[in-house]
């Protein structure tokens, strides 16, 4: 079969039967799935916080309300990556700005995919911030007196841990809304 004798040209030619819009729509479906993978992070991290929280309330029942509060506060911060992923997925599905843009289909489609890959970075902050939430809850259970100091340090560290997730979000938004590769 001659047409497959060059696999790359075969693939590119095959893709060329589709309109630019179709290619972007297909890439959007893939990217919506890719961005959700970022959600692995909060799941691990918040589960860690849940375990440490359960342990801490068992060790110090009188202080269970404060422990739970710190656990939930830290876990809320750890949800950020998951929310970013969900928001980008919803933008992709319902308002992908690259759909309908004039341009080369493969560049538009690849930009959508690239945005999907970038959001996977959210795994990191989700895990890390959840770990901080768990350690914060644990320590507040043992030393309730220093709750504000512990929480401040936890939040400061969580903020530092968020940055690479923000970088990824920015790159994804650039690819979608201000793409310099679109001639």
């Amino acid at each position, binding site marked *: 079969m001659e047409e497959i004798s060059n696999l790359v040209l075969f693939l590119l030619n095959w893709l060329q039967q589709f309109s630019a819009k179709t290619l972007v729509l297909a890439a959007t479906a893939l990217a919506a799935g890719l961005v959700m993978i970022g959600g692995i992070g909060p799941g691990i991290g918040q589960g860690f916080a849940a*375990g440490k929280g359960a*342990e801490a*309330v068992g060790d110090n029942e009188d202080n269970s309300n404060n422990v739970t509060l710190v656990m939930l506060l830290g876990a809320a911060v750890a949800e950020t990556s998951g929310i970013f992923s969900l928001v980008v997925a919803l933008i992709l599905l319902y308002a992908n700005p690259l759909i309908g843009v004039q341009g080369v289909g493969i560049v538009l489609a690849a930009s959508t995919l690239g945005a999907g890959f970038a959001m996977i970075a959210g795994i990191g902050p989700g895990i890390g911030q959840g770990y901080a939430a768990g350690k914060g809850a644990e320590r507040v259970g043992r030393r309730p007196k220093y709750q504000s100091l512990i929480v401040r340090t936890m939040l400061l560290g969580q903020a530092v841990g968020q940055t690479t997730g923000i970088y990824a979000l920015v790159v994804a938004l650039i690819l979608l809304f201000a793409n310099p590769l679109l001639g």
Partner: protein
Amino acid sequence: MDGQSLIAAASAVGAGLAMIAGIGAGIGQGYAAGKGAEAVGKQPEAQGVITRTMLLGAAVAETTGIYGLVIALILLFANPLLG
């Protein structure tokens, strides 16, 4: 072959990818289960508050798995990309 088929095919793969998010909740909630079991062994009298805290934290950890499921269901059953 029409464009709608390509979009539908990509949606099937995208739905599968979205489910991978569930790895996180599985690990995290299992960790919580282990720490909960350890804690009730140490303080059986605190079983109520330990279990409640474990389940509350696990509910929080479930959300991104649910987000992935919702996106997959949208891709399969209410796909806005298919004209």
